């Protein structure tokens, strides 16, 4: 392989491959939304598009060697960890300190929970609208619909 490309991949894509994947997915979705003729295909594109963004956000919150952001009550794992890391602290604080590197960033998860809900709602509503379109035009192909509108000119 060409060394330039190889270094490019090495330096840009590999450490940030999550971003590359999300951008590519997003482009697929966006392309479908813009160019597809069938309304349902557009909606599929929309779903891909929104999912790509969700992927992006979630990948932001990932940390090396971190767990899900739920503080575990079982086992004394994290207490031991903090005992070791902050020996000089007073005992009271030791009991309460939580090593933040042990847990993934919770905020993106929350945000994406919202985004998922929004996505579902949009999709549902859009499906309803396309059903209404199908009911009144008898087709879901955009060009056919436009053709049907043209000769009458009014509606």
């Amino acid at each position, binding site marked *: 392989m060409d060394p330039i490309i190889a270094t490019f991949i090495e330096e*840009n894509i590999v*450490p*940030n*491959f*999550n*971003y*590359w994947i999300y*951008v*590519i997915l*997003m*482009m697929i979705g*966006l*392309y479908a939304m*813009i*160019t597809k003729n069938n309304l349902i295909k557009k909606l599929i594109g929309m779903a891909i598009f929104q999912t790509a963004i969700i992927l992006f956000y979630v*990948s*932001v*919150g*990932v*940390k*090396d060697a*971190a767990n*899900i*952001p*739920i*503080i*575990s*009550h079982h086992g004394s794992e994290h207490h031991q960890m903090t005992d070791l890391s902050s020996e000089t602290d007073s005992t009271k604080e030791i009991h*309460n*300190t*939580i090593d*933040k*590197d042990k*847990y993934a*960033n*919770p*905020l*993106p*998860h*929350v945000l994406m*929970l*919202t985004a998922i*809900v*929004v996505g*579902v*709602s*949009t999709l*549902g*509503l859009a*499906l*309803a*609208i396309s*059903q*209404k379109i199908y*009911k009144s035009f008898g087709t879901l192909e955009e060009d056919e619909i436009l053709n049907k509108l043209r000769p009458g000119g009014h509606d």
Partner: protein
Amino acid sequence: MKIFGLIAVLVVGALLLSATSDFPDWRDKDSPANESPVSSFYIEKTEKLTKVPNMVTAVLADYRSYDTMFETVVIFIAGIGIIAVLRNFDGPNSSSIKRENNDEGGGLLARFTCSLILPFIQIFALYVVAHGHHSPGGGFQGGVMLGASYILAALAFGLSKAKDIFSERRTMIFAAVGIFIYVGWGVLCLLFGKEFLNYEALDPILPGDAKMARSHSMLIVEIGVAFTVTAIMFSMYSNLSTRGRLSKGL
């Protein structure tokens, strides 16, 4: 048009990728997002301040509960929006239209299996709702499961049967009541003299101390969410699957 779209998409993609060059590496625990005081606060202080070990739930239902309230409203909007778009109340014979789908549900095997597993699904869903602050879960997840159980029932026993249990009217009431619980709980905090959704205000009427009040309130709020989500999920399914021609009115 296609070329045009392709160019636009490529430009967008290139722009987005160009920005990744100065992004922190993936999984970097010292990235600004991960080490920012906000997320550290969530991780380190949540349990102390709210007695809830599941930070996601705490952030969702307490720190950013205002967001979540609107999230529930979004679901609600989708539910009534679908009805508003699809339903044709003044159609020529809206009430007399015969259901065109073969609404007999699945075969014997499907019915039998479903009648076996549905209770478990529902109990599990309730558990997910109720145990949201300690383990993965919460109102949305549980609500979706509960909604799915009704959808499964509709698939197995026919929509009309499912509707007998969970009629359109009832779904709307459930959905509205869910939000009512959520917002009402927030307003209750107002009435107790603190900010909207400041659960600490409810300490006098809830067991435990002010921090426990937050924990309890989260549960209540999540129940509200679950109500709405359950109802709307089922309503979405029943409306979309019948193209808005539900024979039994609201």
